[in-house]
């Protein structure tokens, strides 16, 4: 029993250490590296949870495929919409919000 739950406890400890790491690193002024560290640590933590707690390490390939499918789909959204945002030159125009929906909450018919 003890042997079997040891990986779970160790993972939990690793997760807490990583949490301390990411929380601490956020207070260093590193520019974009802050975000990179935050996301990298989050990724490691997520992998730990997925592989150990969610038993993906020993799971049937199909289950891993299902988990991967969600991630890949989201990546498609980011990559292809990203091609737009990365190459679009937005020339902002001034725009005063001409709100015609009154009142602010609710569905009433306008004046």
């Amino acid at each position, binding site marked *: 029993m003890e042997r*079997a*739950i040891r990986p*779970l*406890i160790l*993972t*939990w400890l690793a*997760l*807490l250490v990583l*949490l301390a790491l*990411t*929380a601490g690193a*956020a*207070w*260093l*002024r*590193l520019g974009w590296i*802050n*975000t990179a560290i*935050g*996301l990298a*640590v*989050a990724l490691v*933590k*997520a992998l730990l*949870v*997925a592989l*150990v*707690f*969610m038993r993906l390490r020993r799971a*049937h390939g*199909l*289950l891993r495929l*299902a*988990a991967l*499918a*969600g*991630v890949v*789909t*989201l990546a498609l*959204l*980011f990559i292809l*919409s*990203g091609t737009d*945002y990365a190459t679009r030159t937005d020339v902002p125009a001034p725009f005063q919000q001409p709100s015609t929906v009154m009142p*602010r909450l609710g569905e009433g018919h306008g004046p």
Partner: protein
Amino acid sequence: MSPSGPLHPDTPTSPIGTPGKGHHAEQFGSREQQVFARSFGMWVFIASEFLFFGPLLFAYFYLRLHFPEACAAASRHTDFLAGTVNTAVLLTSSLLAALAGHAAEAEGAGARRRAARLLVATAALGLVFLALKGYEYHGEFAEHLFPGAGFRPEGVLDDRLRGGMELFFLLYFLMTGLHALHLSVGIGACLWLAAGLRHPPEGGADPGPDKEAVELAGLYWHFVDVVWVFLYPLLYLVGRAGA
């Protein structure tokens, strides 16, 4: 009847695999098939649930790209301590959920009670998380950080900056709100399972929740945990080191 059908209906055979020991729903041929179908179903569900956060994450990506300063300024208004403690609470609850799944694997009433206790503890930590989150929300309402007509972050004069901050807080409330909703469902599932484990229904027809059910609830719980693991740096840690 077509002579060229792909099957011999008369072939004596057993359904998929051999009928395994243990209870299974009538549409399945065996217990193993049911167990696998359920955990696969849960994983597909998790993949789908994950994509619910997709538009929010992409909107966040848009915001960080176009309003980096506003994101940093807004993130500094979130409660770092509460967020960090909550992350630890949730990670710990995940450990308990994993232990519950482990405990449920053993046979016997003692193991069932042990699993039930762990599930209750998991749910309790979930409630702690929600309470802390509620406390945070309260503070943010008081500081006029809720988007809408009343959005007035202290000391922000620039319109563009305030607009970006308002969008950040919109996403903050939507993401954490959606996460809290998921967590509430998880808490409900844990408590319901714990009750079933402690007092299995009388009679043989329905043996009550089994170890797989605990495992499935755990999967869902861990998923909610993983989502938070990503929300934490995105919402709480931006621009902490100062402008």
